[in-house]
């Protein structure tokens, strides 16, 4: 009898738990007032903290009575300064990743989500949001986009939203994104041949045709490993498919990339790393050798630049005598790229199958257990519309925000508020060209490169072994395949 009672009680507990946690009923009525309180959390304080706090302050001003709590976990980067003999002040910002702290953050996040519900909005910095969406923890934000009458889709890069979809749903909403474009030295006769999407494979073929003098390099990379990392990033989605959980490192293409990067190094197509590993480990201010930034050290045929480098290119084009211009000064300070007197913009960098992915800079997910999803959505929408300190990294997905960001970049107002003035005619031309070129590039983007921190760690650790001569390409590919397949089989 006693056993029956105990079994009955246990069954009752089991059955009562077989009801899924019920979601608060979502109100699709966007005419309801915006009120209440939400929490936004992020790990990467450097990228998110200032932007979130600024956005929260402005949002609370627009909607009195609302409260946005910002909860960041990671530490801010350390800033060290020193003064040289010439009276120049050098500032070095050091930001390091701490995998132990990252694990603590994710553990805390998981505990909160399973316990009290967790934050309403979570930055998609280090969290495996695609895993959370599989378990139903994230809202499909495409429903909000479709149903919100105040959301003007024409104002956004909808292609980026499409590219961000995972298993048909938009669980991660990008605030800003980035991609690389190709720059080349026109003296080598590539006009018309490097438009659209260019893969590294095509570029290696072009490099084969060159007969470069010793001081000129084909690519602006420091070492084969750095070049490989870029090549891998471009073809990331070829190797790993998060939706089907397929991993593909052993079909020969991964080894081909490894060999290509190593060959580029041995053929003198790329510079060797400036620092050895030991030098990097003992880096201190005493090691810094100040380069003469006025010296012409641009000597690569191909350059792979972040989209903000377009400002420097366009500024030199429209303001040829603008040596004092901040964007020209920034480009001059960057050595090893394409000679700016002969540089031309090529296409956007893509993978071997001709598709192009973007890298996320800032993005957010919404907790499906949020008790105030109306407010969370409004705040998310607000953040997309404004430019905050954090969103300077990357292109805003909102076109008006991008236009405003471009204006601030061009006038120099982004870095020095006192320079935020009316644009001159030349600056307006730069602004128009920048928007046009960027929009053209963005049309080519069809996917999102989900940068999983564990996968990156495995690949770059094992690839280091290859470049240091400790392992063959085949062994490296096999080890990476086994490790990542094990990981993907879990999720």
């Amino acid at each position, binding site marked *: 009898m006693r056993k029956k009672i105990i079994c009955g009680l*246990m069954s009752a*507990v*089991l*059955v*009562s*738990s*077989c*009801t*899924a*946690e*019920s*979601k608060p009923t979502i109100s699709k009525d966007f005419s309801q007032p915006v009120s209440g309180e939400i929490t936004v959390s992020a790990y990467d304080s450097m990228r998110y903290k200032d932007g979130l706090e600024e956005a929260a302050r402005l949002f609370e001003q627009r909607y009195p009575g609302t409260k946005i709590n910002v909860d960041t976990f990671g530490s801010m980067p350390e800033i060290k300064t020193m003064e040289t003999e010439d009276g120049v002040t050098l500032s070095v910002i050091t930001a390091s990743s701490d995998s132990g702290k990252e*694990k603590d953050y*994710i*553990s805390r996040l*998981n505990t909160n*989500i*399973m316990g009290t519900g967790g934050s309403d909005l979570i930055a998609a910095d280090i969290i*495996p949001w695609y*895993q*959370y969406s*599989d*378990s*139903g*923890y994230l809202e499909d934000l495409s429903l909000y986009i479709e149903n919100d009458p105040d959301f003007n889709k024409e104002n956004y890069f909808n292609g980026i939203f499409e590219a961000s979809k995972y298993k048909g749903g938009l669980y991660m909403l990008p605030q800003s994104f980035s991609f690389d474009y190709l720059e080349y030295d026109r003296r080598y006769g590539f006009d018309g041949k490097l438009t659209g999407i260019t893969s590294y494979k095509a570029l290696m073929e072009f490099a084969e045709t060159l007969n470069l003098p010793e001081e000129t390099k084909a690519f602006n990379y420091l070492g084969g490993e750095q070049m490989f990392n870029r090549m891998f990033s471009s073809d990331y989605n070829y190797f790993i498919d998060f939706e089907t959980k397929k991993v593909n490192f052993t079909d020969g293409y991964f080894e081909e990339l490894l060999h290509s990067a190593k060959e580029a190094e041995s053929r003198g197509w790329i510079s060797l790393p400036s620092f050895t590993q030991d030098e990097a480990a003992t880096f201190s201010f005493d090691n810094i050798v100040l380069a003469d930034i006025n010296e012409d050290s641009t000597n690569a045929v191909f350059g792979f630049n972040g989209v903000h480098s377009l400002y420097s290119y366009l500024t030199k084009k429209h303001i040829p005598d603008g040596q004092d211009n901040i964007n020209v000064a920034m480009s001059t300070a960057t050595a090893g790229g394409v000679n700016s007197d002969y540089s031309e913009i090529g296409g956007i960098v893509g993978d071997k199958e001709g598709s192009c992915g973007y890298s996320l800079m800032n993005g957010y997910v919404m907790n*499906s*257990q949020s008790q105030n999803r109306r407010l969370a959505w409004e705040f998310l929408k607000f953040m997309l519309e404004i430019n905050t300190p954090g969103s300077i990294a990357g292109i805003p997905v909102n076109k008006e925000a991008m236009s405003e960001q471009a204006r601030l970049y061009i006038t120099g107002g982004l870095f020095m508020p006192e320079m935020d003035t009316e644009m001159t005619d030349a600056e307006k031309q730069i602004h128009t060209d920048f928007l046009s070129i960027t929009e053209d590039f963005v049309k080519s983007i069809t996917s999102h490169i989900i940068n999983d921190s*564990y996968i990156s760690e*495995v690949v770059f650790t094992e690839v280091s072994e290859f470049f240091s001569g400790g392992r063959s390409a085949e062994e490296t590919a096999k080890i990476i395949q*086994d*490790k990542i*397949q*094990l*990981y993907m*089989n*879990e*999720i």
Partner: protein
Amino acid sequence: MNRAKKITPFIFILPGLLGFMAFYLVPFFYSLGYAFMDKPVGGSFIGFQNFADLLKNKSYIKGAVNTLRFMLIGIPSCMAVSLIGAVILKDIKSQKMWMLIFLIPLVIPSGSMAFFWRMLFDDNGFLNSLLVKVGINPVSWLNSGAAVTSITIIFIWKNIGYNMVLFLSAMANIPRDYYEYAYVCGAGKLKAFFSITLVYLIPAFFLIFIMSIINSFKIFKEIYMITGSYPHESIYMLQHFMNNMFTSLNYQRLTAATCLMVFAVSALTQGLFAAERRFLR
């Protein structure tokens, strides 16, 4: 009076029982509900689908196979070494001092020991430096198939003292007369060991075997601290799978795996108890 006698033990164990129910039993059965849903949030009942998917999941199978393989290697090795140690220490004068030494691993914090093990087994660690000095090629103790050997060494080191204590106390209960009679009859020490010591240690063997099974699951702590969430595939255990399911909030798969593990361990221990009862009879 009889009723009071029946109730009194329950009163004394009630606090512990309530704690066990509140923090283990009820949460276990409550969370087990996730195993029958497709998603923890907004999901629907799917019966045993999660269990079926789990048994086809390659990571789960790898974890289960590795756990079983480790148990088949580590437990007999540990018991054999502990038994040999107990036999050696049985009649020596400084037995208490040696027992103290062998029990030290039980009290050293795992975090401190993980640091030591990493230094010992690292590719550039102390062990490989010794091998290189004597002209042997270094071995990747944590990143190759040799990882199983490394964790077996750690397992034996950690549990040898505990098992030796159990063996010694069991051996102390064997009447000396049996040995004296055996020696008088012409039996040697080896014969006496196999015919008397081993036979009378069988109940202890069952207990130590069950405790070793439980301790074999605890080795995950050291492996995790030394090699992280994704160690070499040869030492990827069931607990790694379950820990990673927690990290990715895949509670349906986590609870299904937990349920299967509880079922397997319960069946094993019940089988061992039944075998012990049958043997003793």
